[in-house]
Every structure is written in C-alpha cells, then in structure tokens.
C-alpha cells in the first residue's frame, strides 16, 4: 500500500479501494463547479475473448512518485483544482473497480479533458501491469500480440 495525501491531491495504490464517493468528496471544493470522476471496471471481454479476472502488479513506490509528477503536470496544463487517483493492486474480478480518477475544476470542459489526459498518461507512464485470466489461461498484457 502506498498513499500520498495532501491539499492538492490524493494518490492511493492499494489492494483495497474506497468507494468512488470518497474520491468525489475529496476533490470537491466550493470554487469548483465541476467534478469529473472516471472509474475503470474489469469487463468480461477483451478482443473477443471472455475475461474472468484481472490481476494488477505494481511498482508501488515508483508508481506513486510518477503519479505525483503527472498530477502536478496536469494541474499546470489545465485550470483544475484537486485531483484523486486511486488504483487497485492484486485481483479485480469482473464488475469490480480497478481505478478511480477524480478531477475538480471551475468548468466542465477542463475537468473532463484533464481526466482524459491524466488517464492517457497514467496508461503510458505509471508502472502498473495487468494480467488477464481467460478461459484458456492467464497472460500478462505484454505477452499478448
């Protein structure tokens, strides 16, 4: 488990995620009229194959520090307020949450664009890896063509 919590952001990497409502409440502030909250959920299919379970491995200390820089970048690029990024490690069954990203801003467009940019960068930069369990076995994402 790794957590960084301050006035500007809440980063949590843990095998237990809080309710999305907690991320919502964390980022809410009276000068921010827009809160955008994105959740990643384990879905039951991937490229036509049935998925029953995901497992996330994470380089927790590095992931937290990369996320901290990434959020600081986002808070410079977009006029946003508080940001929360919560990511689960270990097993995530179908229908369960793997990630929660919440961004508050004075305006909707910025809150929504910043959310998308943050997730795009997270998916490229943060050292977290997904293993998918299919009916015929399990594979790390990098193993798949």
């Amino acid at each position, binding site marked *: 488990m790794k957590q960084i919590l301050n006035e500007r952001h809440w980063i949590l990497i843990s095998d237990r995620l809080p309710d999305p409502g907690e991320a919502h409440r964390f980022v809410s502030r009276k000068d921010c009229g827009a809160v955008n909250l994105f959740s*990643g959920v384990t879905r039951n299919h991937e490229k036509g194959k049935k998925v029953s379970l995901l497992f*996330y*491995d*994470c*380089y927790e*200390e*590095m*992931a937290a*520090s*990369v996320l901290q820089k990434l959020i600081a970048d986002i808070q410079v690029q977009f006029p946003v307020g508080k940001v929360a990024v919560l*990511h689960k490690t270990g097993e995530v069954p179908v229908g369960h949450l*793997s*990630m929660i990203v919440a961004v508050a801003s004075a305006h909707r467009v910025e809150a929504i664009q910043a959310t998308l940019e943050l*997730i795009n960068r*997270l*998916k*490229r*930069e*943060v*050292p*977290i*890896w*997904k*293993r998918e369990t299919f009916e015929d076995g399990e594979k*790390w*994402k*990098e*193993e798949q063509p």
Partner: protein
Amino acid sequence: MLNQLNSTGNCITLNLRWFSILARLRGKAGEEFEMPEGCNGEVLIDRLCDELPEIHKYRSHIRLAVNREYVDPSVILHDGDEVALITPVSGG
C-alpha cells in the same frame, strides 16, 4: 571491455526489482545483483538478457528505471541503486 566500462575492477551491488512478465520469467520479485563499477544501464540490460534470454523478446519495449525514475539507459549505475526493467505498462 574494462576501458569501455570505465571500470576500476571493483563491483557495485544493485537492488533489482522485477515486475509483471519479467518477475514470472525471473522467478522472483527482487534480488541483489553485482555489476562492474562504472557500468551503465545498457550494459546491465545486456547482461540480464544473457542470463535470461526470454527478456530479448521484450527488450525493444523496455524502459529503465533507476531509483524509481525513468532514465536513459546510458546512465551510469551506482552502488545501491534500485533498478527495474519496465515492460510496457497496462494500468487503468
């Protein structure tokens, strides 16, 4: 080889961390690993590929992390560095 590595003949001990497919291939999550003093990330990766040929397949996609930051593989490694080979990530 000694000149190329800028080596004095001494060794440094790296703290390797293994994740995802590489942890499975290596069979462990971490280990201490000795390398000649003055060696850089590229040389370490070469050496690990020699020991664990299965890494070759991922090599062109691997990024190097030293002390929890992405670095260019040309960076010189130091005794006690925490080093990880980062295969393409897939969080989210």
